[in-house]
């Protein structure tokens, strides 16, 4: 086991939870740790690029895609979502208090060398294609996660 390694599973696409995941991840990277984030199921929506499109999707895959938040700007809150008013309020407060917004946090995470891995199985199930994910994301499976997790000193599931 190496104490200078951390892994985080991002299962949720709730904005508040995703923020927590990125604060911990960038914090760990700034402590000199090697960090890998695994995005699975709803967490994949964090990695969807709002500007990108994929060809050759089936009807059900398109429907799935349309029903889920497309990218980091569209994430709901786990509490007090109020049909999208909650996240707007939260973003307003964040801006006012000078808290880093999620898009910047993701950019910062990539700058700090945090590895982001999308789960291939859940991508398949939810009809999300590699071409619609943000740049710099790798694709991996459970063995990738377990391989890294068994080396890491801290493993979180968010």
């Amino acid at each position, binding site marked *: 086991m190496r104490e200078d390694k951390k892994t985080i599973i991002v299962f949720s696409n709730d904005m508040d939870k995703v923020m927590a995941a990125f604060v911990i991840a960038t914090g760990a*990277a700034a402590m000199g740790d090697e960090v890998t984030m695994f995005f699975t199921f709803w967490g994949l929506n964090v990695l969807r690029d709002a500007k990108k499109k994929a060809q050759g999707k089936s009807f059900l895959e398109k429907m799935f895609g349309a029903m889920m938040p497309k990218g980091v700007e569209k994430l709901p809150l786990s509490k007090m979502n109020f049909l999208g008013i909650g996240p707007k309020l939260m973003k307003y407060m964040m801006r006012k208090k000078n808290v880093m917004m999620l898009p910047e946090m993701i950019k910062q995470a990539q700058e700090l060398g945090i590895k982001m891995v999308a789960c291939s199985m859940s991508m398949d199930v939810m009809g999300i294609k590699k071409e619609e994910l943000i740049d710099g994301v790798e694709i991996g499976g459970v063995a990738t996660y377990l391989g890294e997790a068994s080396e890491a000193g801290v493993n979180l599931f968010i």
Partner: protein
Amino acid sequence: MAEYFIDAKGLQCPGPITQLFKQMREAQSGDVVTIEVTDQGFKRDIESWCKKTKNELLELKEENSVIIAKIKKG
């Protein structure tokens, strides 16, 4: 031996430590970095950060709600 200054006032967690980390990556061993922060969590954070990254905390003080830390690169 060089000296650096980071103004991280107004930045929230984890802004100050990521700024410090980036600066430290460029600094040489023995260089001193001074950082000014208004995030009150930083006082404890900087101690853990220095211990973990094996850098030396030379000075930690607070003036008018601004936390000023001086760190020597290990």
